[in-house]
C-alpha cells in the first residue's frame, strides 16, 4: 500500500520494499529507498518547497540535479544541521528531517511575500542604491536583510562529524560517469594506467539513468556491463557521490566525496562523513555533460514549472509523476522525448508549444502519438499561486511579438526547455577558452591550456552513440571524434514576449537570486554593458548554483538589450567551486587540538600542576601567571613581580628562539644582520642585538653569546624564531653564498630557566660548584659553562627584568629536573615562579621594548630612542633606509613613557593620544598607547606609547579618550624603575 499519490506502480530505481519516512516542514511523509528528497516530495504531490531569495515568491522544484536553484533545504537540526542543500541532491534516508530555507514564518504563509507585491521597491542594484545612505546605516539594514533573505541557519554547536583528506595521483582522471565518462574510463583502464572515475551521482550512468530503455541503444545494461568491467580492473578507482569542484593549475583537481551523507545520523562511526580528494592527474577527461536551460516567459517560476529533462528523470528514474496534465514549451528537440515519456506514463500532454516554426527534425513520434504540437508558439504566462494552474499559450510572430489570441490551458505542470548548456565549468576553470556555437546556441570548449580533453555532451555531442565514441577516443588519449550526429538545434528566444506589455509580469533568468529580464534591461539602461559588471550589479549567477541554469539566458537577454551578438557579449568567468563545499571537508582533521601543532616545554607538566594559566605565543604554551587560591590575575601578577623585585623568581624561557651561528664568516654575518658591531665581542661575553628589515624597521631583537671564535648562540623572540631563521637563511643562500656560515636551530635542544631577583646569586651559588658566580668573576652580559644541579649547563648573566638575573640552559631532557632543583633551592629565599605577564610588566617598568608590542613593522630604532645601537660607518641591513630624510623627521611617532594623572588608571593598550582635550571628530591624533600595566613596585600604572615628537614633548600633558571620559597623562622618560640600571649590574 502506498500513500504516495504521484508514485507509479512500477519502474524506476526506487525500492518499493523499503519505504522510508521523513519530515518536510513538519509534515510526515513517506518515500522509498533510492529517492532523492525532491523525488519523494513529488511522489507525494509536494511542489511548493521554498521561497525565493529577494521577493519571497513561492518556488517549486525546477531541476533534478546539482543545478537546482529553488529547492534549498536545511537538513537536520542541532550540531549536524546543514543549510542550503539541494533537495534534488539529498538522498532520502529513514527519519530525515528537512525544512525550507528562505521562508519565515512558513513556506505557505510568508509575511515577506508582501515584498513581491511591492516589488518595484527592489530593482536591480537595490542593495547598492538604497543602503548607501545614511552612512553607518548598513549595520542596521544588514540584519533586516539577512532575516528577510533567509540564508539558512548555521549549526548550533561544533560539528560532531569527522572529515578526511586524501591525496591521489593518477594518469587519467575522468570526471563524470555518463556514457562518455564510462567509455573514457574503460578505454583508459584497459591500457593499464591508473584511472580515477569520479561522478557526483550515487550511481554511475549519467543521463542513461533518466531515459526509458530503448531497444538497440546503449542503456542500463551497457552501464552495468561497463561498470563491472571497470570494477574488475585493479588500476581503476570508481568514486561515486563525488563532485569534482575545482580544477587548478598543473592538473590539480579537488573533489568532495560524500561518504555517509546519504545514511544520515545512522552512518557507521568508522567512516568519515565526507572526504576531500586532492588529485594530481597526468591527463584529465571531462565528461561533465550538459545542463538544460529554462525559458524566460512571464511567471516562469511558479511551482509546477519544471525543466523538461528533469520531469523525464523523475518519471523514468524515480517513478514519480510531477503532474497529471502538462503543457510543454521548447525551442529544442529534447523536450519531445520528455513529453513522450510522460505521455507513456499517463501524463496528459495538453500541448507542445515549439518556438520554432520549422524545426529541422519534426517530432514525428510525438505527432504519431497524437500529441498536440503548436509550431511558432510559446507559453507566454502562467496562472496559479502556490502551484501552476494554467499556461497561457500564444503564437509568436517573426517580429518577436505575439501573434493571434492567447489561449489559457488548464494544467498542473509546465515543462520548459531552452536548449542545453554544456557543463564547461571545469574546462573553463582549467584555463581553457570557450567559443559560442550558433547552431547549438551554447558555449563549447575550445582551446585547452592544460592536458585536458572533453568528451560527450560537454563537447556538444547530442546522442548516446557519439558520447560513447568521444569517450573512447578521449580515454585512449586520442582527439575525440567530431560529434557524428547533428547537434540539438536550439533557437535563441530570450526573452519570450509577455502577453500584456503594460501589465505586471516577471520573467526570471536567475531563479535563486530573483534576477528578471527587467533587471537586466534596467542595468543596461543604467550603463552596465560588460557581462562581469552586470553579474555583480544584478547578482545574476551569484547564488549557490552559480548560474548553472540562468547563465546563457541572462547573457542572451543582455545581448538583446545591447543589440549585440551573443558571442560578442561573452560569458562570465567560471571559478571554483563548481558546487558548494562544506568547511568540514576543507578542514578535514585539522580541527580542535589538531588545527595547529601545540608546543610544550620540558617543564610543562610542572606548570600545569602549579595551576598556571597559559598563554599561546605562536604555537607555544607559555605560563601566563600562576594564580594562588582566590587570587585574581592582577593579584597574582603583582605578587610575582614583587617577588622578582624583592627576592627571586624563576621563569620558563625555553621558548625563546635559539640559533647557533657558526663558521669563519660568523662575525661578518652578525655585523651585517645586526645594527651593532660584533668583532670585539670576546668569547664568554654576550651582547644585545637589534635586527632590522632592509626598510629600516625593527624586525627582532635578542641577546647573542660568543661560544667560540667562530661560533655564536643567537636568541630570538619566541614568536619570531622560525621567521628569523628563515630570514637569515634567505640572506645567506641568495645574497651571500660565499660567506662560510651555518645556521642551526637549537630551540628544542635546550631548556632554559630565567632566575631573576636580588637573591638569584644566592640560589644559583648553592647549586653549582664549578661556576664562580661572584660579580667580578661573572659580570653582567657574560656567560659561563659548568654544572647546575649536577646537569651540564650554560649560564648567561642577562636580564630582561632589570634585576640581577641568570638564564640557565641545560639539555632539554634535564629541564624539568633543573626547574625542580631551583625551586627547592630557592624555597628559603621565597622563590616564586612567574609567567609572561609579570615579565611584560617588569620590562615595561624598565622601559624595555617588546618586539610586536612597541613595534609593528613601522617603527625604526631611532623611533625607539636606540641610536646608541646603530653602527656609524659600516653597512648593515636597513642602514641605508634609516638615512632617508623622512626617517629623521622629529615628528615621527617615538617611544615615550606615559604617567597618568590618576595613578590608579591603567590605560587600555591601543588607546589613541590627543594633544588637547577632545573637541569632536575629526580629532588630531598624535600617537597611541603600546604597553600599559599596573606596577606593584611603583604602586601606580605605567604605560609606554608612541607619540609624535617623542621625548621632545616630555612633561607635556596629553589626553586619552576612553569610554565616556578623557584621561590626562604626562609624557615622561620610559624608564620608570631604576633608570640607571644599578640593580642589574649588582
Amino acid at each position, binding site marked *: 500500500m502506498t500513500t504516495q499519490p504521484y508514485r507509479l506502480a512500477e519502474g524506476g530505481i526506487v525500492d518499493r520494499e523499503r519505504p522510508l519516512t521523513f519530515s518536510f516542514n513538519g509534515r510526515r511523509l513517506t518515500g522509498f529507498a533510492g529517492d532523492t528528497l525532491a523525488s519523494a516530495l513529488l511522489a507525494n504531490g509536494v511542489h511548493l518547497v521554498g521561497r525565493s531569495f529577494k521577493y519571497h515568491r513561492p518556488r517549486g522544484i525546477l531541476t533534478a540535479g546539482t543545478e537546482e536553484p529553488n529547492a534549498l533545504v536545511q537538513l537536520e537540526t542541532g550540531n549536524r544541521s546543514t543549510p542550503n542543500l539541494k533537495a534534488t541532491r539529498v538522498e532520502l534516508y529513514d527519519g530525515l528531517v528537512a525544512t525550507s530555507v528562505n521562508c519565515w514564518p512558513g513556506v505557505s504563509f510568508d509575511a515577506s511575500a508582501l515584498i513581491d507585491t511591492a516589488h518595484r521597491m527592489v530593482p536591480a542594484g537595490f542593495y547598492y542604491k538604497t543602503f548607501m545612505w545614511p552612512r553607518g546605516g548598513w549595520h542596521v539594514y544588514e540584519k533586516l536583510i539577512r532575516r528577510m533573505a533567509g540564508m539558512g541557519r548555521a549549526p548550533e554547536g561544533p560539528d560532531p562529524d569527522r572529515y578526511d583528506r586524501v591525496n591521489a595521483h593518477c594518469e587519467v582522471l575522468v570526471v563524470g560517469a555518463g556514457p562518455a565518462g564510462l567509455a573514457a574510463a574503460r578505454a583508459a583502464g584497459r591500457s593499464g594506467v591508473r584511472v580515477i572515475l569520479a561522478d557526483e551521482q550515487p550511481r554511475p550512468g549519467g543521463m542513461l539513468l533518466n531515459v526509458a530503455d530503448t531497444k538497440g541503444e546503449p542503456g542500463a545494461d551497457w552501464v552495468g556491463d561497463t561498470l563491472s568491467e571497470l570494477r574488475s580492473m585493479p588500476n581503476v578507482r570508481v568514486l561515486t557521490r563525488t563532485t569534482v569542484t575545482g580544477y587548478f593549475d598543473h592538473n590539480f583537481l579537488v573533489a568532495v566525496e560524500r561518504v555517509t551523507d546519504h545514511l544520515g545520523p545512522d552512518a557507521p562511526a568508522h567512516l568519515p562523513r565526507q572526504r576531500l580528494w586532492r588529485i594530481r592527474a597526468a591527463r584529465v577527461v571531462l565528461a561533465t555533460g550538459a545542463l538544460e536551460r529554462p525559458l524566460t516567459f512571464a511567471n516562469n517560476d511558479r511551482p509546477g514549472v519544471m525543466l523538461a529533462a528533469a520531469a523525464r528523470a523523475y518519471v523514468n528514474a524515480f517513478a514519480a509523476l510531477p503532474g497529471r496534465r502538462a503543457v510543454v514549451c521548447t525551442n529544442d528537440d529534447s523536450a519531445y522525448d520528455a513529453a513522450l515519456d510522460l505521455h507513456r506514463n499517463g501524463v496528459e500532454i495538453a500541448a507542445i508549444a515549439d518556438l520554432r516554426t520549422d524545426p529541422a527534425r519534426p517530432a514525428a513520434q510525438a505527432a504519431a502519438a497524437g500529441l498536440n504540437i503548436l509550431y511558432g508558439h510559446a507559453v507566454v504566462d502562467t496562472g496559479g499561486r502556490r502551484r501552476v494552474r494554467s499556461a497561457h499559450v500564444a503564437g509568436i510572430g517573426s517580429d518577436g511579438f505575439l501573434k493571434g489570441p492567447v489561449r489559457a490551458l488548464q494544467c498542473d505542470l509546465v515543462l520548459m526547455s531552452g536548449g542545453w548548456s554544456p557543463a564547461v565549468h571545469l574546462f573553463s576553470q582549467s584555463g581553457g577558452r570557450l567559443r559560442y556555437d550558433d547552431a547549438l546556441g551554447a558555449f563549447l570548449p575550445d582551446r585547452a591550456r592544460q592536458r585536458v580533453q572533453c568528451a560527450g555532451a560537454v563537447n556538444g555531442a547530442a546522442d548516446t552513440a557519439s558520447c560513447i565514441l568521444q569517450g573512447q577516443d578521449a580515454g585512449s588519449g586520442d582527439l575525440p571524434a567530431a560529434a557524428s550526429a547533428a547537434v540539438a538545434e536550439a533557437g535563441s528566444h530570450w526573452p519570450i514576449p509577455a502577453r500584456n506589455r503594460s501589465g505586471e509580469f516577471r520573467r526570471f533568468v536567475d531563479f535563486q537570486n530573483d534576477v528578471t529580464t527587467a533587471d537586466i534591461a534596467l542595468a543596461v539602461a543604467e550603463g552596465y554593458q560588460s557581462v562581469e559588471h552586470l553579474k555583480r550589479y544584478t547578482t545574476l549567477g551569484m547564488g549557490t548554483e552559480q548560474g548553472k541554469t540562468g547563465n546563457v539566458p541572462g547573457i542572451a537577454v543582455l545581448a538583446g538589450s545591447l543589440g549585440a551578438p551573443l558571442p560578442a557579449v561573452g560569458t562570465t568567468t567560471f571559478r571554483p567551486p563548481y558546487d558548494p563545499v562544506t568547511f568540514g571537508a576543507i578542514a578535514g582533521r585539522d580541527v580542535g587540538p589538531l588545527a595547529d601543532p601545540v608546543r610544550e616545554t620540558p617543564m610543562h607538566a610542572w606548570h600545569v600542576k602549579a595551576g598556571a594559566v597559559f598563554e599561546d605565543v605562536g604555537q607555544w604554551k607559555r605560563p601566563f601567571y600562576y594564580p594562588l587560591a582566590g587570587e585574581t590575575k592582577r593579584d597574582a601578577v603583582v605578587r610575582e613581580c614583587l617577588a622578582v623585585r624583592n627576592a627571586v623568581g624563576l621563569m620558563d624561557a625555553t621558548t625563546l628562539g635559539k640559533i647557533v651561528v657558526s663558521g669563519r664568516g660568523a662575525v661578518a654575518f652578525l655585523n651585517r644582520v645586526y645594527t651593532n658591531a660584533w668583532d670585539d665581542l670576546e668569547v664568554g661575553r654576550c651582547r644585545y642585538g637589534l635586527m632590522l628589515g632592509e626598510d629600516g624597521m625593527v624586525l627582532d631583537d635578542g641577546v647573542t653569546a660568543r661560544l667560540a671564535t667562530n661560533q655564536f648562540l643567537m636568541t630570538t623572540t619566541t614568536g619570531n624564531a622560525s621567521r628569523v631563521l628563515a630570514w637569515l637563511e634567505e640572506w645567506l*643562500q641568495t645574497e651571500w653564498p660565499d660567506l662560510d656560515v651555518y645556521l642551526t636551530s637549537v630551540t628544542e635542544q635546550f631548556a632554559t630557566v630565567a632566575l631573576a631577583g636580588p637573591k638569584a646569586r644566592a640560589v644559583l651559588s648553592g647549586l653549582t660548584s664549578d661556576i664562580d658566580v661572584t660579580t667580578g668573576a661573572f659580570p653582567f652580559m657574560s656567560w659561563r659553562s659548568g654544572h647546575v644541579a649536577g646537569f651540564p649547563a650554560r649560564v648567561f648573566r642577562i636580564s630582561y627584568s632589570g634585576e640581577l638575573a641568570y638564564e640557565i640552559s641545560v639539555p632539554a631532557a634535564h629541564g624539568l629536573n633543573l626547574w625542580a632543583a631551583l625551586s627547592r633551592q630557592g624555597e628559603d629565599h621565597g622563590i616564586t615562579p612567574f609567567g609572561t605577564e609579570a615579565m611584560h610588566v617588569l620590562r615595561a617598568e624598565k622601559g624595555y621594548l617588546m618586539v610586536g608590542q612597541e613595534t609593528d613593522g613601522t617603527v625604526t630604532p631611532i623611533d625607539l630612542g636606540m641610536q646608541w645601537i646603530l653602527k656609524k660607518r659600516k653597512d648593515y641591513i636597513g642602514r*641605508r633606509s634609516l638615512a632617508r630624510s623622512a626617517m629623521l623627521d622629529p615628528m615621527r611617532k617615538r617611544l615615550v613613557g606615559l604617567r597618568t594623572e590618576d595613578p590608579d588608571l591603567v590605560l587600555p593598550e591601543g588607546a589613541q593620544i590627543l594633544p588637547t582635550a577632545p573637541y569632536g571628530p575629526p580629532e588630531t591624533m598624535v600617537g597611541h598607547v603600546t604597553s600599559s600595566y599596573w606596577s606593584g613596585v611603583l604602586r601606580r600604572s605605567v604605560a609606554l606609547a608612541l607619540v609624535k615628537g617623542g621625548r621632545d614633548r616630555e612633561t607635556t600633558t596629553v589626553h586619552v579618550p576612553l569610554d565616556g571620559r578623557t584621561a590626562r597623562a604626562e609624557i615622561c622618560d620610559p624608564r620608570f624603575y631604576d633608570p640607571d640600571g644599578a640593580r642589574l649590574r649588582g
Partner: protein
Amino acid sequence: MLLIACPWCGQRDESEFTCGGEAHIQRPPDPDALSDPEWADYLFMRANPKGRHRERWCHTHGCGRWFNVERHTVTHDVLSVYRMGEAPPDDRDGDPS
C-alpha cells in the same frame, strides 16, 4: 596548485614552497652611493610581467634551499628551474602561452 621541481628534491606540490618574488635583484654593494630614489627602486620596485618571470622560491617544507624558477605568469607553466648562482637559461624568443 603548481608542481615545482626542486633542484634538490624533485617534483613537489606548491604548498611545500614559499615564493620570494622576483629573482636576480642584487643588493647594491655600496648603498651609500645610491640616491634615495635609487635605493627605493632597489627596495620596493619589482617587475610584474605578463609572461615569463624569473622568481626565487624556497623549498620551505622540504630541504629549505632557495632556487630560481622561471614561470609564465599567465599559464603558470614552470619553464625552467635552476640553482642559486647559476645563470638563467638563455632568453628564448616568443611567448609560450
